[in-house]
């Protein structure tokens, strides 16, 4: 029962029109994709420019040249006292803050010390430690400027501060140096004296706890569910629960951490161990889901091959399936850890928003983490904290990039070429 069809005219106008429409559709789609990429690149560029322009000055410090005539000053020190193990003690007894204040008044007038940061005497101390012979002559030591002067020098400050800066610049007393203290110190009240190290170390410790818990448990869970557990109502229930856990808002994990780790287990408040435990709960479902997909994607023929030469189920998993699934598992781990690194809400619930001025010594010491530090600084009244906030964001992003870089390196190392 074949109907005779008229032969197709491949060059008819209708055909041509169809071809033209097809080409137009291809072009349209390509342009849309290109537009989307351009738009997101633009946003990224805008973000980077804003943050770098606002934050890079946070790594700089304005110094004021402070001339001190040590022999004439009331400092009670001999160069000999600065050699040997008692140097620190001798410096602590030397009343350097008073010396610094006196020198500031002598050079910059009655309220000269207000131009300087409260920690200006530390710079004097360090200079003396480095070169005790300064005590025998008069010297010019660059010391950190007060926050409003610092701000007025770098960008814009109050009219009064701007005038002072103009006056000081004329004298050639101002200079900018790299603010190493920002990388080595912790939270404080004076924006010229705060540092990110405490929060960075807190983040490192918290991430270490998170990774050490969530990675092995997550991977084992994925393997068990994929390779060992049968398919029944219970495993379906577990699967649904894990998928839901991955979508639970993070603040709820914080509440759980508060109820279980702090109230029931009596773990120390605002410690990295509790933060790490809480974030591990959050990260685990992500690793389990990624791990299951990666294990599922390993070709069954590899399992057959290993079973065929007499490998036991556990040998099949650990010798063959896991290595092949590793790149996929690591991708999921990167995503989960990156999310955990940037997490603030659950950590607020377990007290990691405390003011902590010393870096944590271990996982049980009070600590804070980078995103919480950023949140705290963005909330400060003093304007000097604005650039510190941006600078802390830059540190957080660099940390994130470093972490992802390591994970991508590992993933490529594990990747098998077929």
């Amino acid at each position, binding site marked *: 029962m074949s109907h005779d069809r008229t032969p197709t005219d491949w060059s008819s106008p209708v055909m041509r029109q169809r071809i033209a429409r097809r080409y137009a559709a291809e072009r349209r789609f390509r342009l849309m994709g290109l537009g989307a990429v351009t738009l997101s690149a633009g946003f990224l560029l805008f973000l980077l420019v804003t943050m770098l322009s606002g934050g890079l000055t946070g790594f700089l410090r304005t110094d004021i040249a402070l001339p001190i005539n040590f022999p004439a000053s009331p400092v009670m020190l001999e160069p000999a006292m600065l050699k040997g193990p008692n140097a620190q003690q001798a410096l602590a007894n030397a009343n350097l803050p008073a010396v610094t204040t006196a020198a500031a008044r002598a050079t910059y007038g009655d309220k000269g010390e207000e131009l300087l940061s409260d920690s200006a005497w530390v710079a004097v101390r360090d200079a003396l430690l480095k070169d005790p012979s300064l005590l025998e002559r008069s010297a010019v030591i660059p010391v950190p400027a007060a926050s409003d002067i610092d701000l007025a020098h770098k960008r814009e400050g109050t009219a009064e501060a701007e005038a002072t800066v103009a006056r000081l610049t004329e004298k050639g007393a101002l200079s900018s140096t790299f603010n190493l203290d920002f990388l080595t110190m912790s939270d404080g009240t004076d924006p010229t004296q705060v540092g990110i190290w405490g929060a960075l170390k807190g983040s490192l410790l918290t991430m270490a706890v998170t990774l050490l818990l969530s990675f092995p448990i997550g991977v084992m869970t994925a393997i068990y569910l994929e390779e060992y557990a049968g398919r029944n109502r219970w495993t379906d229930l577990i699967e649904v629960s894990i998928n839901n856990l991955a979508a639970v808002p993070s603040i709820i994990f914080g509440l759980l951490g508060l109820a279980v780790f702090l109230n029931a287990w009596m773990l120390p408040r605002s410690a990295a161990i509790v933060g790490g435990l809480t974030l591990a709960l959050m990260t685990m479902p992500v690793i389990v889901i990624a791990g299951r997909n990666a294990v599922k994607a390993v070709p069954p023929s590899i399992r057959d091959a290993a079973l065929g*030469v007499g*490998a036991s189920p556990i040998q099949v998993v650990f010798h063959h399936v896991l290595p092949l699934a590793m790149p996929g598992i690591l991708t999921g781990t990167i995503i989960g850890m990156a999310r955990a690194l940037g997490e603030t809400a659950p950590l607020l619930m377990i007290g990691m928003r405390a003011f902590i001025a010393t870096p944590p010594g271990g996982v049980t010491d009070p600590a804070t983490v980078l995103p919480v530090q950023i949140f705290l600084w963005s909330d400060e009244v003093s304007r000097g904290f604005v650039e510190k906030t941006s600078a802390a964001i830059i540190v957080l992003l660099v940390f994130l990039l470093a972490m992802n870089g390591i994970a991508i390196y590992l993933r490529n190392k594990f990747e098998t070429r077929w």
Partner: protein
Amino acid sequence: MASTASTSPNISAPIKMAAQDVNVFYGDKQAIRNVSIDVGMDEVTAFIGPSGCGKSTFLRTLNRMNDTVASARVEGRITLDGEDIYSTAMDVVQLRARVGMVFQKPNPFPKSIYENVAYGPRIHGLANSRADMDVIVEQSLRRAGLWEEVKDRLQDSGTALSGGQQQRLCIGRAIAVQPEVILMDEPCSALDPIATAKIEELIHELRGKYAIVIVTHNMQQAARVSQRTAFFHLGTLVEYGVTSDIFTNPREERTKDYITGRYG
């Protein structure tokens, strides 16, 4: 219903494996009905039959690879040297070392050629030293007819070899654990004629050292390589006998129709 008639294949060789009244179910579906068959030592036994007749399924019951399929259920008795392989006393991992398998699609591990062969002996502790292992690898690859082609690049990936070489590597991998029986599940179906010829040649050479069971779609292949042929149809064993008899003088009408190309 099922014809289990032709299980007296005047087997002269000593019996290596024996199946009695084997039924295999996938869930509610019965894939194998009352199959009884003896596999002779030092012989090549071919399973032929149309697609879906259960020959591969039956082959996989011989080393319990069907255990990995959750819905599969095996009834009946299968013995290796008189030992019931489905009894609780039988260690399935050791069984699969004694009854090796080569699969339809070459499936080397994505590791080096050396590693592919060394893996089996290593997990079973068959080599005492690195030098021992080198010997095992060389011997196995020689027996698989691959040594001359790969001896200078043992550290290259096994997956970088051609399809035929990969399949011979898989045979070498199976040989390396010194199995007593080798099961081959359509080992040439993914290969070109030249690679197929090489594998057939290899089967000739391996004959006498191992009991070999080969599933094939290709009747000429069965005629060329096997001493004994079993014809499966719709999950039953229709006829089993000396290969030349099956091909020249089949007793069953269905066998005759199949080998003369009436269906299949």
